[in-house]
């Protein structure tokens, strides 16, 4: 799987030469534009609605542009949207997600990179088995593991804590990440490592001063995979994070699900936009690496 995935790199097409208007071309563009609308409309409507006050939402319909666009609902969603008696806004979830994200990403990538390197180096009878076990581990549905995992974390006293959810993310991220790094390091010429060994460099010396600096590309891929994956996680956060550390996705669903009096669509949608923004920004910044990151991660779970 990952072998195939590594091939994915979208190269740009040569610039179109000339331009002929034929019925075929018109049909082609029409289809592309309709498809583009299909992909754009749901999010645009969420965005559009988040800019309207409630009376405009009640009076008009979803495609009406805001008469007097304002980010008031965004401010409310950020600072004072409620679930139950907690009215501190979705920023609580945002910061929780950040607190979960940063250590989870750093540790999972570091551990996976070292493991991947060790696996790439270490050829022995059992290494195939380990690879197979890792691969299969990447495909086990979380549902099979959830309940016993709760018990395990409870036994070691980590359940419902920030370290607990971080450990869960690291463990669930390991199989795929390790395979990605292992495949990458397997492709590095053995001569390079041999030379370093002759110079007396040890395992970690070689890893940190030779391998890691060569790994920028694969690190970016892993980073994108982990940042979007962990930010967008719902299930693990719901089960393992504990009430103090609920990530933004879980809080979003709680805010949208609870209604006191009238449903405030604008605030709900502003909260949705706020939750969608961080991975969207990653997407726009990461360009061609994005597909590789996501593809590598789609096998997770």
């Amino acid at each position, binding site marked *: *799987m990952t072998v195939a995935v590594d091939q994915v790199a979208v190269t740009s*097409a040569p610039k179109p030469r000339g331009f002929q208007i034929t019925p075929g071309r018109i049909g082609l563009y029409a289809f592309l534009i309709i498809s583009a609308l299909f*992909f754009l409309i749901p999010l645009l409507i969420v965005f559009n609605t988040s800019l309207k006050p409630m009376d405009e939402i009640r009076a008009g319909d979803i495609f009406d542009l805001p008469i007097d666009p304002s980010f008031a609902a965004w401010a409310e969603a950020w600072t004072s949207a409620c679930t139950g008696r907690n009215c501190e806004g979705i920023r609580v979830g945002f910061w929780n997600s950040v607190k979960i994200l940063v250590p989870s990403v750093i540790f999972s990538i570091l551990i996976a990179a070292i493991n991947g390197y060790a696996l790439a180096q270490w050829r022995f009878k059992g290494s195939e088995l380990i690879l197979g*076990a890792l691969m299969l581990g990447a495909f086990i549905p*979380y549902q099979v593991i959830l309940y016993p*995992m709760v018990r395990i974390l409870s036994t070691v006293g980590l359940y419902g804590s920030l370290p607990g959810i971080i450990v869960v993310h690291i463990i669930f991220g390991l199989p795929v990440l390790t395979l990605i790094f292992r495949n990458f390091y397997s492709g590095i010429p053995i001569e390079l490592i041999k030379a370093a060994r002759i110079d007396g460099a040890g*395992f970690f010396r070689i890893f940190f001063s030779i391998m890691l600096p060569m790994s920028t590309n694969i690190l970016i891929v892993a980073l994108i995979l982990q940042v979007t994956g962990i*930010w967008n996680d719902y299930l693990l956060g719901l089960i393992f994070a504990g009430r103090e550390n609920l990530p933004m996705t879980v809080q979003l669903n709680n805010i949208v699900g609870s209604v006191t009096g009238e449903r405030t669509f604008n605030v709900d949608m502003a909260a*949705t936009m706020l939750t969608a923004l961080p991975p*969207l920004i990653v997407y726009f910044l990461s360009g061609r690496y994005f597909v590789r990151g996501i593809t590598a991660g789609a096998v997770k779970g």
Partner: protein
Amino acid sequence: MVGALGRNLTSKAVLTPTIIAMTVCFYGCMAWTIYVSFTRSGMLPNYDLVGLAQYDRLWGDNRWHVSFANMFIFGVLFITGALALGTLLAVLIDTKVRMEGAFRTIFLYPLSMSFIVTGLAWRWFLDPTDGLQSFVRSLGWETFEFDWLVDRDMAIYTIVIAAIWQGSGLIMAIMLAGLRSIDRDVWKATKMDGIPTWRAYVSVILPQLQPLVITCVVLLAITVVKSFDLVVALTNGGPGFASDLPAKFVVDAAFERANIGQASAAAVMMLMAVIAALAPYFYLVRRRS
């Protein structure tokens, strides 16, 4: 070869924690769940074996039947839909269109969003009283109907639509990369033989991309089995439990209904479904190597 041994020792030392964590957390937990599915566990785990009683009850439960069937409906439609749309978009984009970058960006951005956000966005868009249906009616088409979200028979298809929206960009990107990697000589050959472009795609180019198609199918199949968030945000399994999926069934059984036995049995069925989906893939990989 003392040096080699030493190196291997470091490698072993480095890998040991991971191997232990994997063994305990993945395979240990899996074994536990499989074992518990054969016990009389209820609110709390209980280790009295009762044979297949949990599976008997599970397969006598209509909600499970609906969930399990939905997984196949969702799976087949989502995989073919995303594959078809993604491939079509890749082929069209590959015909040297203008603003290729813009189109690619638009088709791909939903991929960055969580299933919770995807589900909520589509829930509002498809809501019969506030969304698309009411908009079209307000334009004057009073009899327009698009109420799949609240229609027991159609709710599962809203999940298919939202999932295709989220996932077909990925297929487009993978297939586009594949198309761009096709040797130019292949195209020249088809041109010389006078084969029309569309036929060249169907009978020459796309067959060459078969390994990529398999990759795509596996990626999409995994999405199907793990779809939990999307259902929770879009329909919450409703109306009734018409759009329930096994991933949600298991979580509900384990935590909401406090029935560990049923949850474990259902989780084992999910595991078997994943294995069934992966088996052909591993078979192909093995045969090729």
